[in-house]
């Protein structure tokens, strides 16, 4: 049983695709994709335990700081670039989006939705920075330096002239029900986008 956002992504990756998984963690997604869909490619990771876990399970992983960009990867050299739960920790998420769609025609991005109603309650009613399952850190030690909302990201994609092929949200451990589909910015805890170059 994979994380909710990974389950959705799994369905969006075509059979036999060549993918780059940015911040691939312990390599679970890549391993599942390789075993069941014949997907090839590499994970990029900076966390030592994640890198070790990937090597142990035979997932190709390259130690790489995403803030250094993707200049070592050629234009259009992958079918998809996937980035789960890392956008908000990057120095320039907008530039990474450009980079992702230079390396591949399609990108899949997931991030915590700051406008999730629980987060709003934390900030709006209680007056504290939100702490939740998707945002577990305190304000002073969080790696998440560029928090955004479902709407913010959609806006950025429109500004960049990108096509949003699919969008979804995850809530807790499962994909959202009708409320989160109707009002994703309010009821989606995790935003999941599939975007394409025009």
């Amino acid at each position, binding site marked *: 049983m994979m994380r909710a956002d990974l389950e959705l992504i799994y369905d969006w990756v075509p059979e036999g695709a060549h993918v780059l998984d940015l911040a691939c963690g312990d390599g679970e997604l890549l391993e599942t994709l390789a075993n069941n869909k014949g997907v090839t490619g590499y994970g990029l990771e900076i966390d030592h335990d994640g890198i070790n876990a990937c090597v142990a399970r035979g*997932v190709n992983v*390259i130690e790489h700081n995403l803030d250094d960009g993707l200049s070592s990867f050629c234009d259009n*050299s992958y079918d998809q670039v996937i980035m789960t739960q890392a956008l908000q920790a990057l120095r320039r998420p907008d530039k990474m989006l450009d980079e992702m769609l230079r390396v591949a025609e399609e990108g899949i991005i997931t991030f915590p939705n700051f406008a999730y109603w629980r987060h709003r309650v934390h900030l709006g009613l209680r007056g504290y920075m939100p702490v939740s399952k998707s945002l577990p850190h305190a304000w002073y030690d969080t790696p998440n330096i560029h928090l955004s909302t479902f709407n913010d990201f959609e806006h950025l994609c429109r500004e960049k002239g990108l096509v949003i092929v699919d969008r979804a949200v995850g809530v807790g451990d499962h994909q959202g029900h009708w409320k989160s589909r109707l009002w994703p910015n309010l009821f989606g805890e995790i935003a999941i986008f599939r975007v394409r170059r025009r």
Partner: protein
Amino acid sequence: MPDSDTLAFADRPTGSVGLVTPHVARFDTPLALACGKVLPAYELIYETYGTLNAERSNAVLICHALSGHHHAAGYHSEEDRKPGWWDAHIGPGKAIDTNRFFVVSLNNLGGCHGSTGPVSHNPDTGRQWGPEFPMVTVSDWVASQARLADHLGIERWAAAVGGSLGGMQVMQWTMTYPERVANAVVIAATPRLSAQNIAFNEVARQAIRSDQEFFDGWYAEHDTVPKRGLKLARMVGHITYLSEDAMGSKFGRDLRSDDLNFGFDVEFQVESYLRYQGDTFSTAFDANTYLLMTKALDYFDPSATQGGDLSKALAPAQCPFLIVSFTTDWRFPPSRSRELVDALTRAGKAVSYANIDSPHGHDAFLLSEPRYDAIFSAFMNRAARELNLAETGGDGASLEETP
């Protein structure tokens, strides 16, 4: 007679392959070398650790670096103070686990530790080979190692593993004999030397060649050794093996005595250390071999025949790679390993890469470091799993000569 060395052996940490004895293999089929010359016959000295399984599928080749040799792990006698040069990573329970793998470690052609080289007898002239020993390249070494594999009945290495110049041999294996390598581990290496690397090698060579005792390489016939030159070569080389931080924390500006003595004798601890390293090396290593090994380093560049395209050169490779670099290595810095990684990803090869935090510079590849050990072990364990290797239970060298 029980002395401290014997005690040291008895107290040696667990995970040692124990006492080992080198073997010598003789090859009478001429070997055509890259330089155009032919070596009519030669010998290779090697050691083995662990037990070769019935399928002969658990053999790991260790390729040595510039001044390395066949004695990679264990002890030659109970009096030995130090184990082989890569004992940190070879032995029961270590990254290259001799409970599972059968390890083969040789001294390369041109070496001075028992394989045919400049100090060997040249049957054609009746004198030592000396400076007339032909230039050998990384490809030549790999060709000779393949014959050693044949000799041992090893069709395919479970893994070829090497650091620095050893890593270059591993790269070459995956290009020349892709079907004979199941996994490749390339540590602290580079796909080709930089101008700065070649420059340092040239200083080392000039130090040796300008020593009055060098006699154009015929020093043995003059019953002498170009000790000064070798010492200088090693001193300059040694600086490039350590990081600035490592030197700083080891020696700082510490003086050997309390006051400055305003002379040119040894004053700083770092001077003393370098001189000691140089002196030790100058009596233990052959000058002609040192010259040959540095040239092999300089010449290595698999991309050269592909218009500089390393990806193309690596196209034949079939096995998964583990590439490891160390943050403070400025001889072959992480960026050089990354060049190799990028060439492999562009060629669509299976590759993983880790850049290990270590204060020890280039020498870090010889040492144990928790993260280095962990990733090395993870890769080797995965290799063992995929090759269905069971524990062989071997704890020492135990290969009978094979036909």
